[in-house]
């Protein structure tokens, strides 16, 4: 059985992390979309922390001796899931950056070409007008 002291320590830690999380979302340095999974983990951990009896039921079911191990085990599994989802997001992002970078570069090239065309067109026009003035 978990000691009450450990229960309190874990509880406080969860509350602190949760506060930091909420604060970061408030300051928009963390996307709510990506914070949701962390919040779910914290809630689950908090639930088990408050009601260790619930843990005993689950850990008995899974055949784990100590409920505290159960918390660590679940936390570990959730962390892995989150890290994996981040890897997926990272792959998607790097592909987006690649496409964006290429498009920006090619558009910049196109822009330079158009500018050069415009410039030479203007010069031609200027010369034509000049020659018109001379004719008159």
């Amino acid at each position: 059985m978990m000691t009450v002291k450990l229960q309190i320590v874990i509880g406080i830690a969860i509350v602190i992390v949760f506060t930091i999380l909420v604060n970061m979302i408030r300051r928009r340095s963390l996307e709510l979309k990506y914070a949701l999974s962390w919040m779910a983990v914290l809630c689950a951990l908090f639930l088990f922390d408050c009601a260790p009896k619930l843990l005993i039921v689950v850990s008995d079911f899974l055949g784990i001796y100590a409920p505290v191990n159960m918390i660590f085990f679940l936390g570990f599994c959730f962390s892995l899931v989150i890290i994996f989802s981040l890897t997926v997001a990272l792959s998607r992002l790097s592909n987006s950056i690649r496409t964006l970078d290429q498009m920006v570069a090619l558009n910049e090239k196109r822009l330079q070409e158009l500018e050069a065309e415009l410039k030479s067109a203007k010069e031609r026009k200027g010369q034509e007008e000049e020659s018109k003035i001379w004719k008159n």
Partner: protein
Amino acid sequence: MKKLVIIPAYNECGSILKAVDDIKIHAPSFDYVVINDCSTDGTLDICRRHGLNHVNLSVNLGIGGAVQTGYIYACQYDYDVAVQFDGDGQHDAAFLDEMAQELVETDSDMVIGSRFIEKEGFQSSGLRRVGIRYFSALIRLLTGKRVTDPTSGMRMVNRDVMQIYAKNYPKDYPEPESVTAILRMGKKVTEIPVVMKQREEGTSSIGGLRSVYYMIKVTLAILMERLRG
């Protein structure tokens, strides 16, 4: 027939001009485009000062992303043929016309300039040759086709393959993987013998621990191509 040479350049300020001159002199029927992959050594400066036709990436994408930019460029500007050409002095532009001729005459989708058909010129170090042979064998096992130099960076493609590569191209060490991809699609790949020089500037991106990563990554990438069907 509009033909384009794609020159990916990352920190090649010492050799990029020579490469472009080489193309202008020995392959005048080709247009060229330098893809500056966010170099940190003033390659961009040289491109601007000498009025080289260049595209400038603002984030470093690595060789795969840079070459792919070239293929997208080739598609956008309606080129019929595009060829990769290293800016570090390894490749010889004198072979480009020959490659184009081969591409048309044999109706191939890709022509690779291979160092190992006539075994002339710089043959790469012993250990690297073993690696290249291994990839060659692996590709033969998976596609049934023989490619003697799957890592060659000197490759000419037609419009069809250009469009495939514009959509999908591997990020790093792209050559063996991308050849396998089009072979699996039933495209025709032929090779002609070329002579390559030892690079004049810069160092190879492959060596030491990287080479272990290189072998594993490329092997898996080739196997993945097989799984994609």
